[in-house]
């Protein structure tokens, strides 16, 4: 290379090769780092890629181990399958549109106006995120079902049919609009306020500013919200299971084929059919739309935004947000009430019987959920931070592969992961089915992306020279991560912890395949109570679940703040 007389092309090849070689050499000098990278690669392969591959494989390989496409041909020509596929997609599209519209209006009202009660609206909008999604379905049955307080109690219908597409769209819109809201809130907040100010300054009206500036700049956010809600809606298992009635969806069918008909191959096929649209949507969202984002992190402090205070704008927004918030509160209030009445719609006297019943029926599933979530949460969060650190700050071969495969278990529907895990881990040397370990692993690998995203976002805002300073003073990568990067990712660590705990506690679509007699989980218990029509007990369990989540979030917040403030002496 020192020979500059070589032609540019050969020169480049040589330098590329030697650069890779040098990187490897540097890695070998840090054995911890190298070991961690290898361990992460192996575990991502075993617990994310391999199970998903198994699901694909079983749909095209028959019991004799031969390539057999008859299942695909058969299923694709069956009108039942096509109807189910269409149902799922229809449900996804409708929920995505309604959820995104509501989410956008909420986000706009909160970020751009002086509307009163913003904090309250914000808080209520988070309720559906921290509770199991089928709480809403349960509540809708309590409200509008055969013994519903509105359908029967208020209007006296005794044959109201709450099951079907309409209820499902309503439930999923209400359950998943917070995802669109949070996403769009971030986007709207990140749009530089001076851009909108400039338009106002040039003489545009509020409406003009909204139509020509705010909305176009938010388009990437809107598209990604649509896709996120779409994915959530089609892969949702709990709500359709409870309330879909005759309206069949892919996630439910995959489960019924396996547990009802003992047909693992057909079930897998339904799961794959579910996987393709959701995975496509996820990667479009991740790589195509996010690239188009106008939002840039400059690190320059932006001045406070001038908020809209005109009555004719704020009042309609306030009423709209109030109605949605009211609906959410009604839903959760109903569950709370349902947990405390004797026989819903028949004998409305208040009682603690439901809670007593949950204790006699067994508190095992509550303990299991708590224990397994508590075990997987710190692993998930720390692993997420480590992978985030590696992806943002380190150079190594296969980095892109690590990033993509760590997202895989998050992006594919829980149903696929559940089925994949039974297929992959039902024999030695990886005989895990029926154990607690398989549940912990499923939680960890399904939730790790949340930690990685939070970690990469916060690391991008940390000046790399801070870490270089540490290296420069003699710290190894490992020490730098522990002493500098991790403390600076504190808030990301917190949200990683919270999200992975909440997602573990409330997950159902994957774990319903993995539970066993010894290791039953709370969400599955609730679902079976709903199916047995013991709605009071189901409501009581839901309340217990939500209370646990709230307590743990509080504890985590206290703990993380305590950790960082205990070392801080008072200076102000």
């Amino acid at each position, binding site marked *: 290379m020192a020979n500059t007389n070589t032609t540019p092309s050969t020169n480049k090849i040589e330098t590329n090769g030697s650069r890779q070689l040098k990187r490897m050499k540097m890695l070998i000098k840090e054995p911890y780092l190298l070991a961690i990278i290898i361990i992460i690669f192996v575990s991502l392969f075993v617990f994310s890629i391999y199970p998903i591959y198994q699901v694909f494989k079983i749909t095209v390989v028959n019991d004799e181990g031969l390539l057999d496409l008859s299942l695909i041909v058969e299923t694709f020509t069956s009108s039942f399958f096509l109807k189910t596929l269409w149902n799922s997609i229809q449900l996804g599209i409708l929920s995505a549109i309604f959820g995104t519209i509501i989410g956008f209006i909420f986000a706009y009202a909160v970020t751009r106006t002086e509307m009163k009660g913003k904090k309250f609206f914000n808080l209520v909008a988070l309720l559906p995120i921290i509770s199991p999604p089928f709480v809403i379905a349960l509540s809708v049955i309590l409200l509008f079902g055969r013994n519903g307080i509105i359908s029967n109690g208020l209007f006296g219908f005794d044959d109201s049919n709450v099951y079907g597409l309409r209820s499902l769209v309503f439930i999923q819109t209400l359950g998943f609009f917070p995802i669109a809201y949070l996403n769009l809130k971030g986007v709207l907040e990140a749009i530089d306020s001076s851009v909108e100010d400039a338009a106002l300054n040039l003489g545009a009206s509020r409406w003009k500013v909204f139509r020509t500036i705010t909305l176009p700049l938010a388009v990437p956010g809107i598209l990604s919200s649509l896709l996120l809600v779409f994915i959530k809606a089609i892969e949702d298992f709990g709500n359709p299971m409870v309330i879909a009635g005759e309206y069949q969806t892919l996630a439910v069918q995959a489960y019924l084929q396996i547990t009802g008909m003992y047909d693992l191959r057909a079930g897998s096929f339904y799961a794959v059919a579910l996987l393709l649209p959701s995975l496509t949507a996820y990667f479009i969202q991740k790589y195509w739309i996010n690239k188009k984002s106008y939002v840039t992190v400059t690190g320059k402090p932006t001045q406070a935004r001038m908020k809209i205070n005109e009555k004719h704008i704020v009042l309609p927004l306030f009423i709209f947000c109030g109605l949605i918030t009211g609906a959410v509160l009604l839903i959760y209030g109903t569950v709370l009430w349902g947990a405390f009445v004797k026989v819903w719609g028949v004998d409305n006297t208040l009682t603690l019987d439901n809670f007593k019943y949950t204790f006699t029926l067994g508190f095992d599933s509550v303990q299991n959920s708590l224990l397994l979530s508590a075990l997987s949460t710190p692993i998930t969060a720390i692993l997420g931070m480590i992978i985030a650190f590696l992806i943002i700050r380190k150079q190594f071969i296969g980095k892109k592969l690590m990033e993509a495969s760590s997202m895989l278990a998050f992006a594919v529907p829980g149903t696929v992961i559940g089925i994949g895990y039974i297929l992959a881990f039902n024999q030695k040397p990886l005989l895990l089915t029926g154990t607690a370990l398989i549940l912990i692993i499923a939680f960890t690998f399904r939730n790790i992306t949340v930690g990685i995203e939070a970690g990469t976002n916060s690391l991008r805002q940390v000046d790399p020279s801070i870490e270089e300073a*540490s290296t420069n003073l003699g710290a190894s990568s490992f020490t730098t991560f522990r002493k500098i990067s991790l403390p600076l990712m504190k808030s990301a660590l917190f949200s990683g912890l919270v999200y992975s705990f909440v997602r573990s506690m409330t997950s159902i679509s994957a774990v319903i395949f993995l539970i066993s007699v010894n290791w039953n989980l709370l969400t599955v218990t609730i679902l079976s109570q709903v199916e047995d029509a013991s709605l009071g007990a189901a409501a009581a369990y839901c309340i217990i679940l939500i209370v646990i989540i709230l307590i743990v979030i509080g504890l985590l917040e206290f703990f993380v703040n305590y950790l960082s403030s205990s070392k801080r002496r008072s200076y102000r």
Partner: protein
Amino acid sequence: MTNVSAPIKTHSVDVKLSNLLKIFPTHDGSEDFYAVNEIELDIKAGELVTLLGPSGCGKTTTLRMLAGFELPTSGSIHIGADNVTNVPPNKRNVAMVFQSYALFPHLSVFENIAYGLKINNVPKGEVIDRTFKVISLMHLEEFKDRLPSQLSGGQQQRVALARAIVTEPRVLLFDEPLSNLDAKLREYMRDELRKIQQRLGITSLYVTHDQTEAMAISDKVVIMNHGKIQQADNPIDIYTRPNNHFVAGFMGKANFLHGVVKDVKDKKAIINILGQTISVSVNDKVKLSENGPVDCVTRPEFWELSEEGKFNGEITRVIYLGNHVEYEVALGDETITMMDFEHYKHGIKQEGERIKLHLKEECVSLLPPRKEYVKEGLV
């Protein structure tokens, strides 16, 4: 600011960069970018050497290769007797003061400074001892429990320097350390940095794009452009005996005037410029031949207003700067910039005014003519 006795031990060593090359590949696969193009540089023990040049000239890349944050494509780096070319950055014992300071935002001033010692497993008592010594050297006592965000820019700068020197590094690196300070503070900190560096006698490499800063603090200034060293000399030689047009133009202002050599004798050259004859000392930068072309470097302060001056010109632009006035003057086909430091005596001239100028011929230095002029026959 600094205490009289220096409590920091230092290990002064030479630094040698040999044939250092750094190529960055371009993403679109077009021609590679030669960030640093085979440079040679020796830094003597205890010297402060400045890398100076426009942005993108390779100075920061050179510094980062010495720190170990970039690996050279080829060439070698020696610190003292050790070849550190492939030593990881955390094993080099070279301390860096970062442009952004890169203080650890979650650690107090004390913890920031003690960090490097703790990392290297220095016994606890010694960590406290040494950290306090540096804190008092840098006069940071009253801030030691504060977080970086509670310090002013100048204080942060001192913490960054304290953190770098506490580990008794073999080499101290500065990456434009003063660029975030306001002009007054920058001058003050510049002198403090230099004092401490000299007292400790640490071999230092300093990167800046500010020529005054480089002049003020350096034992040796290295001017870089396009990844190559243009000149490496002490500040006086850099200014008075520039190697080429780039150096002359980058270090201060320069008017280049094209002349024709008439005669050479006794180390003096007689040169025709602008229809006049001047006598200039010969240097080793250019080979002179009779009737051959040559470029004369005339700095603005080499010109003065004088009734006896040989050169007649017309003022085309006036910039009043307080302690002096800068004029642009048309001399025939050429336009030069000159400075008048005695405007209270001469009065401030107006645009369009005709003036006579004297050139201090003894200051003028010579360079080979730029190739393009030769080609275009403009000589």
